[in-house]
């Protein structure tokens, strides 16, 4: 993975010093709330319902074991001994004290970590595929380009005060595992006929109040022009994006109001006009960064049937919680953060330390954070899988439900977030309890539930096969349900609302009735999302409220 050079380290150290000074000035009353807000957000610090929340960047989800240990240490020393991993591959601390944040950042900087631009109206942490570099279906490793974008976007002189937040995602496989089309810019790595590296460029995706799927504005952008083209998009947006209404300030609204064709023309014109002063991506710099992502020292091995003859529990774990690897003899292993009864994405310091140790022993000392709020050990030898399972099981990190209905995505909701209208964690637990029978879960196959506590959609409810959105109804927590959303398998779609919202006590039953419809309607071997696409949402709609007609 990428290692800081002296420049990168000096920058992060200087940033910590700056934020320490800003915090001091705020606490002394020299900096107004408004001014401090602008700088603290750009350093990942929110003021939340109960306490500040600090969002620590995990660039494109890649962590060294020493970094995971540091996350464990800061969670233990400055918080309540756990952290929350997010859909954008970051980690949040829910209870830090404001005056200790500069110390937290100083500790993080010692292991090449930071919280720069993880919130605020600027270019956010760049995300990617959690199977980057190891997936069989991948065109090329997207991470060197993520790192280049991370550096270019850091403290960008022109684009640090944008109309609204700005998210970039880079993927390199047809199976889009990082929800790239829900980003302000989605880049799909590809090769042209001459074998040159480049990107298809999608803009204007986003969820929130106005969910829109990103649209292609350029089929092939050659790599040397990457930064120049990104600057052209951002300049058009920075100048014309709306600043009068926060709900209309994302680039998706600008793309929609101009029309994608006119937007594209403006970007292309800006790109040409700025060629002289836009940053150029030199081949030597690309090579320097790429060298950091050389494959680890894999041994020459054969694939084996690691599950053969083992107990059913291990076989289930092998089937659901491990994934194919492009190198023979290896597999990728999920570290499951969706144990029933736990908050999705939460992990204790003890678990982090233990997983860091495990990664050192069996996965080249590296860990990945996934969009689905689990961690992943990317490079585990197949003959190590059984002992790895035993360790993870002892840590409570081996629930064999990845990809099933209870591997659900949820934002922190009303319990932690000051924006939320309704809780998500209680509902998550209710669903987990209702679907606690693993054989029943397995029979249901791949079902993605995504839940947000408000229309800001941090839990990506629009693109869940089953989406659950918390709404406030006369001071009570109610939930609106959508069906048919998707971001996987190269098919991105927004879900459709099935009817009136339901009270908290009815969500799990409603989900149960929905999956009953699937069980009776499905063809042999047909997955949940495919059944919805085939029969439409009508039969689901009719049955979902069958025993709850008074819902209004």
């Amino acid at each position, binding site marked *: 993975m990428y290692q800081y050079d002296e*420049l990168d380290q*000096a*920058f992060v150290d*200087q*940033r910590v*010093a*700056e934020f320490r000074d*800003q915090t001091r000035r705020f606490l002394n009353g*020299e900096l107004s709330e*408004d*001014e401090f807000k*602008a*700088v603290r957000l750009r350093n990942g610090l929110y003021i939340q319902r109960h306490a500040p929340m600090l969002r620590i960047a995990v660039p494109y989800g890649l962590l060294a074991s020493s970094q995971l240990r540091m996350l464990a240490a800061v969670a233990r020393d400055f918080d309540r001994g756990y952290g929350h991993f997010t859909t954008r591959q970051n980690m949040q601390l829910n209870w830090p004290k404001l005056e200790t944040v500069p110390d937290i950042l100083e500790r993080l900087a010692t292991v090449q970590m930071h919280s720069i631009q993880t919130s605020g*109206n600027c270019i956010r942490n760049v995300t990617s595929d959690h199977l980057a570099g190891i997936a069989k279906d991948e065109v090329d490793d997207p991470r060197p380009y993520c790192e280049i974008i991370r*550096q*270019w976007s*850091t*403290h*960008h*002189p*022109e*684009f*640090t*005060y*944008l109309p609204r937040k700005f998210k970039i995602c880079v993927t390199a496989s047809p199976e889009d595992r990082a929800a790239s089309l829900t980003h302000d810019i989605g880049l799909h790595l590809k090769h042209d006929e001459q074998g040159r590296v480049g990107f298809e460029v999608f803009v204007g995706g986003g969820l929130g109040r106005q969910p829109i799927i990103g649209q292609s504005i350029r089929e092939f952008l050659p790599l040397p022009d990457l*930064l120049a083209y990104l600057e052209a998009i951002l*300049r058009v947006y*920075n*100048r014309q994006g709306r*600043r009068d209404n926060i709900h209309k300030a994302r680039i998706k609204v600008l793309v929609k109001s101009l029309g994608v064709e006119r937007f594209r023309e403006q970007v292309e014109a800006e790109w040409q*006009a*700025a060629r*002289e*002063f*836009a*940053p*150029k*991506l*030199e081949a030597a*710099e690309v090579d320097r960064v790429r060298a950091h992502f050389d494959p680890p020292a894999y041994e020459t091995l054969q694939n084996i049937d690691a599950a053969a003859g083992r107990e059913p529990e291990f076989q289930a774990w092998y089937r659901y919680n491990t994934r194919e690897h492009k190198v023979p003899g290896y597999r990728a292993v999920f570290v499951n953060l969706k144990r029933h009864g736990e908050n999705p994405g939460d992990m204790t310091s003890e678990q982090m330390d233990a997983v860091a140790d495990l990664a050192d022993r069996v996965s080249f000392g590296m860990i990945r954070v996934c969009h689905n709020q689990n961690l992943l050990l990317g490079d585990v030898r197949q003959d190590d899988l059984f002992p790895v399972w035993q360790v993870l099981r002892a840590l409570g990190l081996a629930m064999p439900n990845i990809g099933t209905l209870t591997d659900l995505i949820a934002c922190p909701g009303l319990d932690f977030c000051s924006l939320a209208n309704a809780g998500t964690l209680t509902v998550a637990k209710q669903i987990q309890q209702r679907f606690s029978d693993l054989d029943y879960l397995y029979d249901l196959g791949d079902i993605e539930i995504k839940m947000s506590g408000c229309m800001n959609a941090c839990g990506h409810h629009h693109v869940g096969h089953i989406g659950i959105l918390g709404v406030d109804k006369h001071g009570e927590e109610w939930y609106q349900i959508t069906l048919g959303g998707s971001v996987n398998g190269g098919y991105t779609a927004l879900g459709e609302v099935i009817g009136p919202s339901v009270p908290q006590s009815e969500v799990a039953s409603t989900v149960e009735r929905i999956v009953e419809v699937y069980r009776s309607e499905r063809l042999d071997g047909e997955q949940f999302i495919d059944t919805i696409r085939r029969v439409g949402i009508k039969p689901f709609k009719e049955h979902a409220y069958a025993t709850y007609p008074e819902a209004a």
Partner: protein
Amino acid sequence: MRRILKRHEVVADEWRLLGEDASDADPIIIPVAELRKDTEAWLTRARSGTGRLGVSLAPTECLESLADMLPHLELVAVEFPNVGDGRGFSYGRLLRDRLRFKGELRAVGGGVKQDKIFLLARVGFQSFELPPGENAAEALAALKRYDVVYQPGAPVDGIRRQRFFA
């Protein structure tokens, strides 16, 4: 008296704004709309060398329509009306790098705070009108907060390394 941070020091503003007491020889800053309204008269004044001319540009105004008049201007004051409005950053970059404006690029308005001064300098602003209450010594020091940058941009004293080049 307006305080201007410029070249390592804070000085009193030598420029007058339209409507303030000024002699014909005083350098004067007028809104872009005023220049458009009375272009010939203002440009005649500028050409005659009696008084230097500058314009102020709000983020809602069209930068490109100013292009023809730039050779006659000695100063462009770009407005940053509040902490969050970042349109002026693009104006700075475009004035310096695309329109090749050689005069003084000045950042003005309530959004010109010490925590933004480093970035403002990097997109080409050379002078900064400090809003009332802004600490001048700290604002000067803010220009030296970083000595490494990733992007191409205007040179700022003390920057020793840069990563991506234009």
